[in-house]
């Protein structure tokens, strides 16, 4: 197992470096001079040249990348142009809120997805299966930002039950685990949970169906095992794949939260990314994307290891 983990970690290093390279290059595909966002509009040629040297933009690209990477490894992602605060501090504070939202959404989406998927797979081609499959396909096809708007229309505008935007009373970004704060979490969490719910349902349904049609299930039934115990075997066999899909979905929720966070003004990494884009705050844009992508890579690594831990066949492959 340790050898497997070591191998996986070694394999991740080139990925991490390439991710860093992509994030570094992002700033260089922006139209115009990357200094434009930093400099005042009436800056003199002299000042521009000075700044170019100060930021290292006059050096060759590979050297710039090396220096940038060296600083990034030491936790220095530069400072936000808009606020002047260190990028890493800003990103980590926002990521906390995104994690809260993603975990809440995962609890809802994965529970429902597993439940619907198992039931639909077990009662394949019955009306129960049809209902569950329809819910799942609606879940994966719905534009979730629109669903968020509809939720706000129903529960905030029409019924006035839940707040429409923000993450707590008074508009403060600080999160707390009390009802006053929880009220703000319900709508964005349900909205975020819809896509993973649909995908997990579809995956688990297909898995359950496939496993139930295998010969060993026939053998289990033939030796007189009760249906509930047969089901345990199904779950055991479906677990590694289901786990991988859920891990990936959690990663998508963490990294792809910008649309939902924009709809609900949820103060997470997505909202931060949104403001970075529209204020042309390139260091903040670069830093946020780097941190989120690294989160995603780390999560995938964890999922791989967890998968190997519960299914010994994977280690050999």
């Amino acid at each position: 197992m340790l050898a497997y983990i070591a191998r996986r970690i070694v394999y991740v290093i080139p990925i991490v470096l390439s991710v860093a390279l992509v994030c570094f290059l992002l700033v260089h595909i922006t139209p115009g001079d990357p200094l434009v966002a930093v400099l005042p509009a009436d800056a003199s040629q002299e000042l521009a040249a000075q700044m170019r040297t100060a930021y290292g933009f006059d050096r060759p690209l590979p050297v710039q990348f090396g220096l940038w990477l060296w600083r990034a490894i030491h936790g220095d992602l530069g400072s936000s142009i808009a606020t002047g605060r260190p990028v890493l501090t800003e990103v980590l504070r926002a990521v906390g809120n995104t994690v809260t939202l993603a975990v809440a959404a995962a609890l809802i989406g994965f529970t429902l997805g597993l439940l619907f998927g198992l039931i639909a797979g077990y009662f394949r081609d019955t009306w129960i299966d049809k209902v569950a499959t329809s819910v799942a396909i609606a879940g994966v096809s719905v534009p979730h930002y629109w669903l968020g708007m509809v939720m706000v229309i129903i529960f905030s505008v029409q019924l006035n039950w839940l707040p429409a935007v923000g993450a707590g009373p008074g508009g403060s970004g600080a999160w707390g685990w009390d009802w006053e704060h929880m009220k703000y979490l319900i709508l964005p969490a349900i909205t975020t949970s819809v896509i993973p719910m649909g995908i997990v349902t579809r995956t688990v349904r297909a898995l359950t169906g496939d496993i139930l049609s295998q010969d060993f299930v026939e053998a289990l039934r033939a030796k007189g095992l009760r249906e509930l115990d047969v089901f345990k075997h199904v779950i055991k066999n479906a677990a590694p794949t289901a786990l991988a899909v859920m891990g990936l979905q959690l990663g998508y929720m963490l990294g792809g939260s910008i649309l939902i966070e924009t709809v609900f003004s949820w103060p997470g990494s997505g909202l931060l990314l949104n403001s970075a884009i529209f204020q042309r705050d390139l260091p903040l844009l670069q830093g946020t994307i780097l941190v989120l992508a690294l989160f995603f890579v780390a999560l995938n690594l964890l999922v791989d290891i967890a998968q190997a831990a519960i299914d010994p066949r994977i280690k050999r492959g």
Partner: protein
Amino acid sequence: MTVMSDTALQAAPATKARGYWATVGRRIARDKVSMVCAFVLVLIFASALLAPWLGLADPYQGSMIRRLRHIGTPNYPLGTDELGRDMLARLIYGGRLSLIIGILPVILAFVIGTSLGLVAGYVGGRLNTAIMRTIDVFYAFPSVLLAIAISGALGAGIVNSIVSLTIVFVPQITRVAESVTTGVRNMDFVEAARASGAGPFTIMRVHMLGNVLGPIFVYATGLISVSMILAAGLSFLGLGTKPPEPEWGLMLNTLRTAIYVNPWVAALPGVMIFAVSICFNLLSDGMRSAMDIRN
């Protein structure tokens, strides 16, 4: 004698075996869900294409005195938007841009990804490693994040949004194409073609393409659903087209301010995105099971 040959002639067509694609087509045509989806999509595409000849109101013509009319108002069957423009006209005209920015990235990615995957899968070796490891880098980003990162760096605009979504979908299609090609490469008929002296380009074009296109096409059809949601999402964020252009994602964004006044009109553009997205998803499912002849 003559009687016998007549029966033989009549019996002949009935025993003629149908080809693979004819069987698939027949199976899809018998699937009610797929046919309903195809019908809805044809309706949306046709109305977007024929919008100028449908006798609709001017989608750009606003009026301050008839802002945010409700659904069912005489002359405005779907109400008016925040600038008093006819919603029905804007939704139908909106289909033009929305469908282009949603579908074009998948078509471009289909062409690029299939070529890359076919070459990687057929040539194998170092070239395969080079292509597939580069593709892996893009898998290290959640797709929404990658689309937003590229779009955000390039700046707002229709072309930039199409470029960023194409970059998001190329790796996914390349992976599918590579794995299908690798599966077909070692089959006997490819070996036979090689033995009879066909060059790699001829083998790929004549013998492999037809065998790998089906599964890749089905996969790409499913991607259109995601692409529609993401493309409209980029516009919703302000990274796509600019006002006053009618486009579903952008309309949803500008109507957000109206949810306290006329909520259901504000939600309408999303219904269009949802309809197109779910139809492509169901159609892709239908095609997949129709092509799985063994079941």
